[in-house]
C-alpha cells in the first residue's frame, strides 16, 4: 500500500513535470529555443535564428553582397529558422533580416565587429 506522503510527493512531481512541459511548449522557452551558433555542416555553414512572429528570415553578409533575397532560411519547429549556405574557409560577417526589413544582430557568433553604421555584424569562422 502506498503511504499518503508518497502519493502526495508523486502528485507534486507529476504536476511539476506537467508545468515544465506546458511552459516549454506554450511559450518561446529558452529551454527549447536556445540560440545556435553558425556551425559547419556538410555542404556549408548552417545558420539558425529563433524569432517569434517572423514570416521570413534571410541571412545576409559579405558572402552574398548583403542581399536580402539570396539566402532565405526555412522555418523549422516553432519559431526556429535555419538553412545552410556554402562558404569558403576564412571569416565572414553576417546579420539576419526578418520579414525583409528588420535587421537582427546574430544572437550567437564566433565574434562580433562594428559595422560602421551603428550595429554589430556577427562573424563566422569557417575552417
Amino acid at each position, binding site marked *: 500500500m502506498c503511504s499518503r506522503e508518497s502519493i502526495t510527493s508523486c502528485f507534486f512531481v507529476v504536476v511539476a513535470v506537467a508545468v515544465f512541459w506546458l511552459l516549454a511548449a506554450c511559450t518561446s522557452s529558452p529551454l527549447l529555443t*536556445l*540560440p*545556435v*551558433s553558425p*556551425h559547419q*555542416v*556538410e*555542404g*556549408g555553414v*548552417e545558420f*539558425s535564428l529563433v524569432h517569434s512572429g517572423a514570416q521570413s528570415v534571410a*541571412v*545576409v553578409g*559579405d*558572402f*552574398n*553582397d*548583403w*542581399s*536580402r*533575397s*539570396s*539566402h*532565405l*532560411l*526555412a522555418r*523549422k519547429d516553432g519559431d*526556429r529558422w*535555419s*538553412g*545552410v*549556405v*556554402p*562558404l*569558403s*574557409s*576564412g*571569416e*565572414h*560577417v553576417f546579420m539576419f533580416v526578418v520579414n525583409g526589413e528588420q*535587421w537582427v*544582430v*546574430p*544572437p*550567437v*557568433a*564566433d*565574434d*562580433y*565587429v*562594428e*559595422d*560602421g*553604421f551603428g*550595429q*554589430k555584424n556577427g*562573424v563566422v*569562422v*569557417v*575552417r
Partner: protein
Amino acid sequence: MNRWQVWLIGLVMASVPQVSHAASLPTKDVQDINQLGQARGHASESINRLLEHAQQAIEQGLPERPIMNKIKEGLAKGASPERIQPVVRDMVRNLRDAREVLQDAASGGSGQGGTDNSRATEVMAEALGRGVTVDEVRSLGRSGGKGRVNQETLAFGAKGLAMTKEAGVPGTEGIPVIGEALRQGFRTNELLDLGREIKKHGNEFRADRNRIQEVKKAVERGERPGKIFERDRQSGSGKGGGGRESRTEDRESSKKSDHERSGGNGDRSGGDRDRIESREQIDRGRESRGSSDFRRDRGDRGGDSSGRGRGGRDD
C-alpha cells in the same frame, strides 16, 4: 582624311577617359551599387561620390573590394550615402596606412617580403579600423623579431592584437603576447584564434592582469590557442559569454575599447539541414545550380571569396 573620319577619331578620343574611368571599377559591382542606390531612392550623384572613394583606392593601387562591399552593406542596411561617406573615407585611409606600414616593415624594419599583398593590406586595414595604431604595429613587428615576420603574418598578428584590445587588454600588454606568437611561428589562423580566444575570455583578462602573462608564458612554451584555452573549454568556463552577444559586458569594457564584444563558439549542436536555394544564381541565369557554382561565382570577382571586404581568409 575626310570630315567623317576626323569626326569619328574625335568622338573616340573624347570617349577614352570615360571608358578608362569606368573600366577601373568592376562593372558588375558598380551596377549592383547603382541598382541598390536607385531602389533606395538615392540620387545618382551621391552614389557616384561614394564610388569615387573606390576609384581613388584603385588609382592608389589599393584593393577596392572592401570599399565596394562596405558601400553595398551600407546601402542594403538603409544608410544614406552621406552616412556611408565617412565610413568608406576611413576605409581608404586605413588601407593607405596599412600599405605604408607593411611596406615599412618589409623594406627595413622588422618584416620580409616586399611584394605588394592586397590580402595583407586588407587585413591590416581592418586591424587599424578596429583600434590598433600604426605605432603599435611597428612595435609588434619589432617584438616579433627581425626577419621572422612577413607582411601577411604581421597583418594577421595586428588583427589578433586588435581583438586583444577589444577584450580590454591594453596594447602594451597585448603586443608582447602576439609578438611572442609571431616568434613562435604561429600561422595566420592561429594568430586570429589567439586574439579571438582572448577576446572571448575578456572578463578573465580584465579581472586578472596576470592572466595575460600566463598566456604569454604558454605561447613561449610553444602552446597553440587550442591547448592554451583547452582547460577553460573542458571546465565549461569562458566567461566572455560563450559567443552570446552581451551588451552589458560591452558597455563595461568599452571604457578601454570601442569594440567590446564577447565572442566564441557557442552551442554547435546540429539540426535540420536545408541547402538554401540562391536566388542570385537563378537571376544570373546560370545553367548549373549548387554550391560549387555559387562558390565559383564569388571567386570570379575577387579570387578569394572568403571574408569579402574583410580579407579574412586564413590558412
